[in-house]
């Protein structure tokens, strides 16, 4: 049989006949599928027009409460009027270019890192990017040097805060998680036990309990007179939590490296750290790039939990804007829809990219 014999016949006929053939095969194949198709169309007819009418046709962008009261549809004016509060929280109004710049820079570094992991030659650039980028972001946000006024981090909020908490969480959890994963694979019983207990305990409890612990118990742990602020405590909680999940991701990668590779390192008389650095980790980490991106996505979504301990991340600022004036409170659908759209855009595109990466990185294994 030649290669060509396996291919389906080329579509022939006019567009109309092809459309009919296609829908016969994909929509009206048998009575059960016909019912499903008709049911689905009826459902869409019931669902879509009112939503379009509400969200677009009858909606208003007028950023005043009066303008919104007149409109029968969505009041996007709520978002329009409170955009800066939603995006940047209570950061001093005149200084809001700083979180904006920091956010763009951070997004650039995140996108840059995600892009760079695809190409082995660019992977080396990832660490320098963060090493240079994070201090610049810190300077922009805190200020106090180069003529920038100092902004206490209790004023930080909005989308920059969500991005900072989740990306710094993953970046700092990375080395910690790696150590835990290596500890779990270790032949030394004490180190193995400590790692396993840490990983399993953290994975067994919800993030909110870790955040409560960070916000309520950390202050008790510290010596007299030393305090760390709420944001930093939440950040530490997020790092400790993420590390346990990343450790399991890394373990998957380490287990996928064939035993022969470990033995090859031994037979070259490399020390443990040498063979890890030169032989094992480069292979293991390449395998775990997509699940690491997925961990970042779930961390990004979970960061919203800091609302519960009283920080104003992106979801918190939406709630803040809803409460800023009693007249706005009833436009919660618009507020939450806006936040949901932003979260969806970021998470969906990262998830798609992660799926694409998974396929790309496997190319070498396919023959």
């Amino acid at each position, binding site marked *: 049989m030649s290669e060509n014999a396996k291919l389906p016949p080329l579509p022939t006929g006019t567009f109309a006949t092809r459309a009919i053939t296609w829908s016969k095969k994909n929509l009206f194949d048998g009575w059960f599928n016909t019912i*499903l198709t008709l049911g689905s*169309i009826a459902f869409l007819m019931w669902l879509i027009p009112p939503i379009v009418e509400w969200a677009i046709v009858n909606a208003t962008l007028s950023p005043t409460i009066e303008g919104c009261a007149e409109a029968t549809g969505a009041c996007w004016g709520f978002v329009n009027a409170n955009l800066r509060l939603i995006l940047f929280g209570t950061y001093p109004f005149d200084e809001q270019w700083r979180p904006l710049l920091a956010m763009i820079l951070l997004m650039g570094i995140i996108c840059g890192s995600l892009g760079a992991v695809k190409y082995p030659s660019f992977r080396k650039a990832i660490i320098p990017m963060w090493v240079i980028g994070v201090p610049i972001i810190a300077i922009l946000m805190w200020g106090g040097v180069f003529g920038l006024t100092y902004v206490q981090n209790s004023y930080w909020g909005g989308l920059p805060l969500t991005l900072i908490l989740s990306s710094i969480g993953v970046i700092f959890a990375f080395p910690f998680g790696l150590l835990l994963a290596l500890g779990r694979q270790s032949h030394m019983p004490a180190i193995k036990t*400590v790692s396993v207990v840490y990983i399993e305990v953290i994975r*067994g409890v919800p993030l909110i309990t870790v955040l*409560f612990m960070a916000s309520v118990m950390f202050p008790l742990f510290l010596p007299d007179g030393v305090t760390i602020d709420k944001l930093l405590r939440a950040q530490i909680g997020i790092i400790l939590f993420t590390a346990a999940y990343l450790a399991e991701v890394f373990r998957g990668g380490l287990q996928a490296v064939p035993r022969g590779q470990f033995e090859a390192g031994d037979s070259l008389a490399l020390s443990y750290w040498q063979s890890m650095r030169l032989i094992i980790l480069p292979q293991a980490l390449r395998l775990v790039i997509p699940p690491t991106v997925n961990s970042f996505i779930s961390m990004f979504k979970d960061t919203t939990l800091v609302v519960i301990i009283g920080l104003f991340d992106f979801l918190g600022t939406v709630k803040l804007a809803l409460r800023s004036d009693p007249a706005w409170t009833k436009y919660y659908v618009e507020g939450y829809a806006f*936040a949901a759209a932003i979260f969806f855009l970021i998470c969906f595109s990262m998830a798609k990219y992660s799926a694409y990466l998974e396929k790309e990185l496997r190319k070498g294994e396919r023959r």
Partner: protein
Amino acid sequence: MSKPQNAPGDVRSKGLVDYLNDENVRAVLYQIIAIGLIVLAGWYLVSNTLYNLEQQNISTGYGFLDLEASFEISETMIDYSAQSSYATALMVGLLNTVKVSLLGIILCTIIGTIFGVARLSSNWIVRKLATVYVETFRNIPVLLQLFFWYALIPGAFPHPRDALEPIPGVLLTSRGMYMPVPEPDNAYTLMAIAAVIACVAIYFIKKWAKKRQDATGQPFPMFLAGLGIFVGLVLLAYLAGGAPTDMSMPALKGFNIQGGYNISPEFMAVLIGLTVYTSTYVAEVVRSGIQAVPNGQWEAADSLGIRRSVALRKVILPQSMRVAIPPLTNQYLNLTKNSSLAVAVGYPDLVSVSNTTMNQTGQAIEAISIFMSIYLGLSLLTSLFMNWFNKKMALVER
């Protein structure tokens, strides 16, 4: 890893350096150092904590559990009042957590399976709809979804005065949903006992039927027989109990609705949010589970002349279950852990009650240690159960 050994002819006595280069000695040393550091850090934290607690005049210990809680809880499954102890309050919270998690697990399994199967449908429009559902709800943070549902329910439904009545007896109001429930009667206890007896009977009949089929090849209509036994026995108990028909109907009295069973907006928000969010993950698990079964299995069943529906039940599903169970366990655990977000919408779950307790008594360490260990216990129980189930389903090879 091999240990470096001295050659038999080596007469050189071992010096300190040799010991330090011995892999085993090093391993012990590393472990001593690691444990030492952890103990040191722990001791430092504990001593700081004790000092701080002493400064703030907070006594440690779990004695506070017997004190009067003196706060009300809106939803309780056991007897509770403000005079009850903190321990009872925490128990109420735990039961609420278990209630919403169990219901959520059941619902998300059903909905997730439907959407997982729909994503593999040969029907284009059904496939696309299922994909949109899964991609939308899994990429929006679950807390945002909870807030949304919690804001929507009181906003979308009317005041109890002009409650909606979609089905006679069921009232939808801004204070939640009200359903008629039967008035308590001895007949219901009798029915519960009958149900248990029916289950035991079905178990033994199933054993007998399998034995007979193994011996003679004769199949037994187990499903119909089981259904008959169950419904028959329960119905019999109902009639024997005097067939009570009294129902507690919800009705407007004064400014609020009395009678019936109330499902609060908080509970609905948590349940809907958790179910929708987790069902998208379950859908993906189901989809990959079905896709993991090779097409040859369908063809093999066909060539043995097995009906499609029997093939699905006896050939395909048992194999896809095997692939799906471990990730499904993870999703159930995630749902249980996410139920702690109930604190954000005011549903009195374990974390919410503990939080109130913590604020009232200042016993932060004790309260946090209680709910952390309960969640750990729940996680452990779920994974033990699923491991047992997994073992039962696992492929038995020679």
